[in-house]
């Protein structure tokens, strides 16, 4: 076992050409993922969290353009030739998707699909690959592994399909797992099983995990650190306990108070008024300004940068002290 690797993302931007002009889906995002750590990327639809994940490993196709630096194991993934990137992707860095039915090949048995990955990224011979596939199915908790390897994706339930996808992702012993809403399509008892599976694999294999989700409950239950995204930018980062205890960005605060908690049944929730802006028509200054109750003229003049206010804690809000102070009155 070599020492853990970390991923360093600096100033990542992804733009798409659209008929309405260039749209910046991810705008100057920087973060790092340490070995064995679960980093949550949280945000609502259109906040750029999935595009961020895809940009990391070159899954953005033209006319999409990606700039910035993604340093993994001493090399910049964004400037790697496609052949070498393909070896990293699915090898050291694996990804699982929200909808396993579309990510799996419907006309191949799942055994063949695992084997495909093992052939591409390991030096095992046929018999060893077969044995490893059974091992992987056992690891992710698919009963009757030998027989199930002969099955096609449609013969699995949603939760089992997600396990198959995780097994395929793990085939190459990845050091970093990118998970894009892995449990959003699943029922709550199955979601619980899958999240706990990912956490126990993280502990066993020491891999880092980037978990993209919109569900704050999932974040609270699984992540070590959180980066909150809004309109393509990171607006706040911190450890999960710090973020949940004392959000310092008005958006994070609104997001947390939008979720009903036990104890105040049938009381109005503190909703965030309005809707997220279209990426093609971002307001000047802070993108959250028009929906923010703390906003002042200064917020409309210039876009606040991400400030480091404590170790492991960054926030992009001019009034973060006021937000933190106001939290007390609300809770």
């Amino acid at each position, binding site marked *: 076992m070599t020492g853990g690797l970390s991923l360093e993302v600096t100033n990542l931007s992804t733009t798409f050409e659209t008929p309405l002009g260039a749209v910046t889906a991810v705008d100057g995002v920087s973060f790092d993922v340490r070995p064995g750590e679960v980093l949550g990327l949280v945000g609502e639809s259109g906040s750029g969290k999935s595009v961020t994940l895809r940009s990391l490993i070159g899954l953005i196709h033209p006319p999409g353009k990606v700039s910035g630096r993604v340093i993994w194991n001493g090399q910049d993934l964004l400037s790697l030739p496609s052949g070498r990137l393909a070896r990293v992707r699915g090898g050291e860095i694996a990804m699982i998707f929200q909808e396993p039915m579309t990510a799996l090949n419907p006309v191949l048995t799942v055994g063949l699909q695992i084997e495909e990955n093992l052939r591409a990224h390991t030096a095992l011979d046929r018999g060893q690959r077969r044995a490893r596939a059974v091992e992987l199915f056992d690891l992710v908790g698919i009963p009757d592994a030998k027989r199930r390897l002969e099955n096609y994706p449609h013969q699995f339930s949603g939760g089992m399909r997600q396990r198959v996808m995780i097994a395929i992702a793990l085939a190459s012993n990845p050091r970093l797992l990118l998970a894009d809403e892995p449990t959003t399509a699943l029922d709550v*008892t199955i979601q619980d099983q899958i*999240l706990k599976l990912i956490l126990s694999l993280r502990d066993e294999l020491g891999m880092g995990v980037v978990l993209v989700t919109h569900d704050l*409950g999932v974040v609270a239950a699984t992540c070590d650190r959180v980066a909150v995204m809004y309109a393509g930018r990171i607006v706040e980062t911190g450890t999960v306990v710090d973020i949940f205890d004392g959000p310092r960005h008005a958006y994070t605060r609104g997001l947390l108070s939008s979720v009903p908690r036990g104890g105040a049944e*049938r009381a109005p929730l503190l909703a965030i008024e309005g809707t997220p802006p279209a990426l093609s028509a971002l307001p000047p200054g802070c993108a959250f300004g028009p929906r923010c109750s703390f906003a002042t003229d200064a917020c409309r003049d210039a876009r606040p940068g991400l400030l480091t206010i404590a170790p492991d804690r960054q926030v992009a809000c001019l009034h973060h002290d006021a937000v933190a102070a106001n939290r007390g009155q609300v809770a």
Partner: protein
Amino acid sequence: MREPALISVEDVGKVFPMTHSLLRYMRGMPQLSVNALNGVSFDIHRGETVGIVGESGCGKSTLARCLVRLHDCDSGQIRFEGKDIAALEGTARRQFNRRVQMIFQDPYSSLNPRMRVRQILGEALSVHRMRPKAAIPTRIAELLDIVRLPSDAADKFPHEFSGGQRQRIGIARALAVEPEVLVADELVSALDVSVQAQVVNLLLRLQEELGLTVVFVAHDLRLVRHISHRVVVMYLGRVVEIGPTERIFSAPAHPYTQALLAAAPEMDPRRRNTAPAARGELPSPLNLPPGCAFSTRCPLATDRCRAERPALRATENGHMAACHLVDTHAVTA
């Protein structure tokens, strides 16, 4: 003594037959069918919010559709003010349709994309002759105001709105006919969290102001807890537990409810548990286990659970559970 129930669901069953495959036919095997609802009974009282929760395939959406008579029940009956809704005809049926309204999960597919909001609301108003023709524009403006949409919304098409706004149009359309009961099937599931809260607040406010009875079908336990007075927990087409919201969440009696609550992630990162709450997955509704439907996943299941189907029995004030073990106190919250 409480007044009689506004809607009573009595032993309702709904079966969806599958296509009979030639192979099965030639082998003389019976046609397969999905038992979506299996003897569901409960009451809904005027002015209350009843939450119906369960995982996918538990029959909650089928039940919602039966309540508004989009499906006819295959067995049992649903009574509205004491009258079997399956027997309503003509004017009585139209009256029922007006008084019990449904709001659908997907605001993208439940609004006609070729109609302006004015036409969508106007149609509801004129079909049920809610207002004389001349008063319709005023009423449309009123409805938009009730759901907090700008007045210029009337002349736009559904695609010009965001998801949350579209759900408001769905609510306005349902309210246009001045219903007494709203059946909301996964009302906010397709919306972002911050927008969800807006729609939930709207629903709570409307219920207070208009004295509506609400049936809130959802899979999100936090939302159901927030909105409902009483909660019905369903599993594979059966009611496994029913009771006042506070009791269900603080002292769940059925092992399935307990597993469901334990599986829902806590909003507090300090309170994590590492053991999965429920093992296994839902059995196929084509082939239900003979005894308790949850017995295949239940950690406490006994031989009796696998053989004999437990009936829904009262544990205390208005709290009922369908579990053989509730009486013996083997199940603790």
